[in-house]
């Protein structure tokens, strides 16, 4: 929490000014009931109209000043909250942009997203609210008590006595309520889960005629949810009646005690009337302070989550180029006894060695989770290897500047992302590439026809490419990878949704036009990689076969098994 306050430091002058205005506005507002009692007690008995007119005008003036002052202060508070949030969010997002993959895995993506969004919204709201209520409510409370003290100290005691009771009740009830609402949230999640399952599985449910069963299942979660909502609301329903009862009983006590004090000449009637007004003001302030505490506890959780990201140290990115010349005759890509482990200890690659010459193609095949994508991540330095080394042009990839290293690649990841933007921007992705080159890349990726049908490079792509079919998405992604004319082209399971014909045309284009690029292709289908110079068969992190298609069909049982299942016996061996 304290660290975040440093984000507020630049705004201290503005906040102080807003604070002063707010104090002024609030004090003026407090003066109104005080004037009311003065008019009734001291001016009316004089029996003249003119002082009443003067003080009445003063009251209206106070109302006006309070109005203007409070609005001005609120606006300044909003501006401060805006600038604070903007700065915080900027830092947060750029910090996330430079987190290492390992750190991103640690936080998980959904959690990072909610830290940039909902957590910063909570903080925005809190900073604004604290400036508005945080000043007004305590002043109303303290000021109200002081004004009542000047009016009548003994009556003030009655009021002060009720305050702790009110505070305690709201505190306890709202804490209990917060807990109960968490339980409600859980029940609501289960209710929604059943609905989601029914929407997604409608064919299965209808095929098996299980609608009746599903209705029963829904009834159960619906009833549970209803019951929990009832319990939570029942608890919260206590607050209002109890509060107004306490307020009203306080007023009755003031009247009775006031009667005795008037009897003994210790106070005047007008004061009792003003007192009744102040009582309401003070209690409202107390409730506002209570609300603030609830809000602050929510904000504390959010700020802890935001700070956790901001305080994460940078990894991986501080490299400077470490070499002065490139060794000659080195292979383009070399894996030298590479072993790799994730933090979670799961997928790993063990003792992997291979070399690729410029222009060669490497095919990788193997079970999901066998470690195929890991090889790519290590090569592009999303993670550093645990043992061994990866070299490009004879230089360890850890000695390249990260941006220089990445600039060598054109890549399509498994389940890669399309952005909500134009087709042009999705292929270009911020790089300096002309429309002609983009179109040519799309043509090679077999994407040009559907792009033209959709309306050309200016056609809009929806979030995650939702307006495109699976095959269209993959072709657009491949266009992106081809567009930069990369030194190394990586396609990770990126043609699984293409029919065989399109897939083969694509391979032909890559063979013709990317002769100088070194290619790494990961696939489930043997037909996608069978023409590669080198094929790597991975099982459970270990290399179980390396060679050409024909060699592997003879020597590698796993490869043969896959080949036969996909193409049919005899046919696979014959190619």
């Amino acid at each position, binding site marked *: 929490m304290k660290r975040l306050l440093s984000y507020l430091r630049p705004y201290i002058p503005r906040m102080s000014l807003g604070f002063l205005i707010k104090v002024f506005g609030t004090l003026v507002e407090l003066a*109104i009931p005080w004037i009311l009692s003065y008019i009734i007690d001291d001016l*009316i008995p004089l*029996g003249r109209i003119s002082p*009443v007119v003067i003080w*009445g005008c003063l*009251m*209206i003036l106070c*109302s006006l000043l*309070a109005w203007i002052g409070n609005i001005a202060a609120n606006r300044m508070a909003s501006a401060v909250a*805006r600038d604070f949030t903007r700065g915080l969010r*900027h830092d947060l997002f750029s910090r*996330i942009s430079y987190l290492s993959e390992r750190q991103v895995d640690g936080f998980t*993506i959904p959690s990072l*997203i909610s830290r940039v969004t909902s957590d910063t919204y909570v903080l*925005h709201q809190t900073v604004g609210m604290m400036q508005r209520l945080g000043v007004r409510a305590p002043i109303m409370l303290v000021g109200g008590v002081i004004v009542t003290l000047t009016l009548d100290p003994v009556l003030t005691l009655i009021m002060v006595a009720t305050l702790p009771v009110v505070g305690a009740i709201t505190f306890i009830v709202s804490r209990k309520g917060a807990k109960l609402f968490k339980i409600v949230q859980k029940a*609501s999640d289960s209710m*929604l889960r059943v609905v989601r*399952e029914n*929407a*997604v599985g*409608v*064919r*299965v449910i*209808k*095929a098996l*005629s299980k609608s009746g069963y599903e209705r029963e299942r829904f009834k159960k979660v619906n009833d549970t949810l*209803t019951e929990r*909502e*009832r319990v939570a*609301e*029942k608890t919260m*329903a206590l607050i*209002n009646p109890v509060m107004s009862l306490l307020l009203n009983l306080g007023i009755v006590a003031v009247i009775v005690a006031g*009667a005795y004090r*008037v009897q003994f000449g210790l106070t005047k*009637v*007008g004061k009792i*009337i003003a007192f009744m*007004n102040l009582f309401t003001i003070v209690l409202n302030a107390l409730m506002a302070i209570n609300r603030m505490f609830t809000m602050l506890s929510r904000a504390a959780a959010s700020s802890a989550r935001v700070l956790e990201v901001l305080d994460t140290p940078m990894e991986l990115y501080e490299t400077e180029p470490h070499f002065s010349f490139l060794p000659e005759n080195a292979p383009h890509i070399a894996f030298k006894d590479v072993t790799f482990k994730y933090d979670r200890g799961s997928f790993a690659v063990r003792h992997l060695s291979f070399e690729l010459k410029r222009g060669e193609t490497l095919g990788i095949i*193997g*079970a*999901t989770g066998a470690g195929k994508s890991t090889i790519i991540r290590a090569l*592009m330095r999303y993670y550093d290897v645990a043992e061994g080394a990866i070299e490009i042009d004879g230089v360890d990839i850890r000695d390249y500047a*990260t941006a220089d290293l*990445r600039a060598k690649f054109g890549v399509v990841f498994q389940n890669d*992302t399309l*952005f909500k933007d134009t087709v042009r921007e999705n292929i270009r992705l911020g*790089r300096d590439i002309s429309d002609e080159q983009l179109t040519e890349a799309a043509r090679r990726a077999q994407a040009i026809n559907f792009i033209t049908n959709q309306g050309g490079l200016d056609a809009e792509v929806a979030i995650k490419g939702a307006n495109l079919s699976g*095959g269209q998405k993959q072709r657009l992604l491949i266009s992106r990878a081809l567009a930069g004319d990369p030194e190394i082209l990586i396609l990770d*399971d990126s043609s699984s949704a293409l*029919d*065989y*014909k399109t*897939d*083969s045309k694509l391979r*032909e284009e890559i063979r013709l036009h990317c002769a100088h690029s070194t290619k790494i292709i990961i696939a489930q289908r043997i037909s996608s990689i069978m023409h590669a110079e080198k094929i790597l068969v991975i099982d459970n992190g270990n290399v179980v076969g390396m060679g050409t298609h024909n060699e592997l069909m003879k020597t590698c049982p796993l490869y043969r098994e*896959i080949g036969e299942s996909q*193409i*049919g016996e005899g*046919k696979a061996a014959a190619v």
Partner: protein
Amino acid sequence: MNEQREKMKKTAVLGRLMPYLLRHKGLMALCILLTIGGNLLGLAGPYFSGFAIDAIKLSEDGKGVDLSAVWRYAAIMVVLYILSALLSYILSRLMIIVSRKVVNRMRKDVFDKLTELPVGYFDRNQTGDILSRISYDIDTINTSLSHDLVQIFASAVTVIGALVMMISISPLLVLVFAFTVPLSVILTKKITGFTRPLFRKRSAKLGELNGFVEEMISGQKTLRAYSQEENTGKKFDVKNTETAEAYYRAEYYGSMTGPSVNFVNNLSLSLVSFFGAVLFLKGSISIGNISTFVLYSRKFSGPINEVANIIGELQSAFSAAERVFRLLDEQPEPADSENAYELNGALGDVRLDNVRFGYSMDKEIIHGLSLSVPKGALVAIVGPTGAGKTTIVNLLMRFYDVDSGEIRLDGNPIKDLTRKSLRLNYSMVLQDTWLFNGTVSENIAYGSEQATREDIERVCRACGIHDYIETLPEGYDTVLDDDGSNISKGQKQLMTIARAMLLPSSLLILDEATSNVDTRTELQIQRAMRALMADKTCFVIAHRLSTVRNADIILVVRDGEIVERGTHDSLMSGDTFYKQLYNAQFA
């Protein structure tokens, strides 16, 4: 569709909402009675406080305070206030009961409707949208409906009561409100008129920022591959500034409301005390009356502001209700024909006779398809991705009805069969494995409730998944959670195959695509499917060449239409699209 998009009339929406409330007529009436009672008691309090003040006031005329009168009035007030608090607590408890019943009922109605809707509805509508109707929309209706309706009623009672009381004290002084009430109405109207579009814009901008952040952080790996960190940061800054600014603009005007309401209240107070003083000097009002009047004036102006808020809330409730009713108005799956009969344990002989079909009236995609599938035959449906291979499946199981022509099962026109019995003759394994939040055995026995644990284990052994299930923490009683983190896609697929195996049906529909499933598991799935297919009439959406080659009939689908049909050999002998598809994999 288009006619439905038209806006429902407000009265129509209200007319359909009322029955939900009227179902609890008694409770509602009681609520209204309690509201009136509670508010009247609340109003009576200040009335007696005025008497008490006057009793104290006597001292200034030199008579001394009438202490016994003060005590008497105080006692009356205490009783009144306790009663009022009690009533309002009972009232809110009752309201909670009513509103929970209403919500429960609405959710049930919506869900029951969902179970009656045809498959097409779920093809057209996003799941997220359906979910928001059953949760967010119904909640919105509920808050307004029960809470606001009673609130409006209560406010009306309070306003009228306070007005009557004030008039009884001093009709002249009430004239103050002839000035301040319109002022407050105009002010709030002005402000809300100003702020509503700004708040709408704020929500839109927040939504945009959410979408952007989600997109960018999810796609981070890609952005890094092309070194786009800085560029993305710049784009983010634009969105960030827009959002912060929209938030500020809304707040800039929105934060006027509180001070403005306070201003009008303070103004009323000033005017009342000023004119009250004048009237006192003229001798037409007592000090106690002034104090009572001040208390009533607070009760009077409070609800007026509240009603302004509530009207805004009601508007959003109406639009939410409209969305819910639109769902309830959807056409359900047409009922079975009147003399529909059951067909159980069909042999599996399927015949299509000159079938025509299109998803929309203007675009026919199956033009007079005739097909004879004898018992035990294998029909393969092939074609590029997204070509519409599931259409035939949709027709066979009557998820959609044919436009003309006829489909027969064992010689019975399927339109004369009950849907339930027709569908139970099929078992299905789809590409999107569907498992629900329940135990492994519940999921596998879904659709065959009479199955014993032995039966379940038998089919799991046949699918080669038994050993895997035994390694799960609770074995067959392990609960599958929805992120499915504990179970791989391949294992899920095997479970749905086991489910299909338990069913006694003689017809099978299979979508055999297994992209993204690892090769080992894929081999296992294939073996399990082959076991499942034995002796059944099979319709397979085929991706694997071995399946296609063994098929008795191959249907080739392209752009939604069936363009070729035949056996593997007959199709390979001509210059066919099928031949192109088939050869492509060896190119």
